[in-house]
């Protein structure tokens, strides 16, 4: 199933829109975060009987982002993952792993999807 229509949304209207969708019986499928410059772009995917709504929201990475886990509980896992991957922080997150869902402090890997770039090493070296 191919789906290309993505609508852009002001980040201030996020909660209203999400609440509306929830009331209309949409299901949260997932959120796809992409780093765009110093902004974080998150695409919220919703679905209701294969009718999809994709909202593109751009947010400032350096301030805490608005969590929607209060509306859709299942968002907590996704948002925790984003915290790990992008080093951002969500406010009002119902169960926060503090950026350590996957990665421990000692590993020294912070926000791998932003700061780090991985390299292809020579065959068999690693």
């Amino acid at each position: 199933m191919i789906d290309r229509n993505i609508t852009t949304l002001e980040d201030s209207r996020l909660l209203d829109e999400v609440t509306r969708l929830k009331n209309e019986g949409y299901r949260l499928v997932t959120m796809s975060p992409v780093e765009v410059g110093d902004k974080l772009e998150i695409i919220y995917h919703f679905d209701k009987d294969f009718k999809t709504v994709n909202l593109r929201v751009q947010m400032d990475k350096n301030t805490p982002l608005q969590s929607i886990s209060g509306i859709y509980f299942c968002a907590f896992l996704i948002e925790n993952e984003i915290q790990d991957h992008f080093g951002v922080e969500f406010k009002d997150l119902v169960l926060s792993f503090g950026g350590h869902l996957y990665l421990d402090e000692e590993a020294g890997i912070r926000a791998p999807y932003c700061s780090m770039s991985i390299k292809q090493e020579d065959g068999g070296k690693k």
Partner: protein
Amino acid sequence: MQAIKNLIKKSRIKSPWLLHYDCSSCNGCDIEILACLTPLYDVERFGIINAGNPKHADILLVTGGVNNRNKHVLQNIYAQMPDPKVVVCVGACGNTGGIFRDAYNILGGVDKAIPVDVYVPGCPPKPEAIIDGVVKALGILAEKSENLKNCVEQEDDR
């Protein structure tokens, strides 16, 4: 006494109990290990049991590469296995990290965390290859027990 010692020696390679741990494997290797236990391959023929508890195991079968979090787990269960013990790592990931070698959270093969005795290549290796790997490990197990026996005897003398 000597007879019992001989029996023990003989039994060592006839009753290898496995512990399987999935590091960062993709499951491909794991299900092939499980398949070894099932009727078609039935490794219980060799006395192999999937023990599930490090304290009961002789052979540690590891699949997948080591990542930052499971490194400790691997070391922990390895430490909890009583000697003599051997480690068999299964699959490209376990051997070197495989296709994920360069991923940020993969440190590399199992030998980055614990000493490995047998490498089974493949992605995933066939159940037959895994059986071969375990059989190879038995040889090493026997070797290691030789060394161990010495210290047991020393203990007895004391």
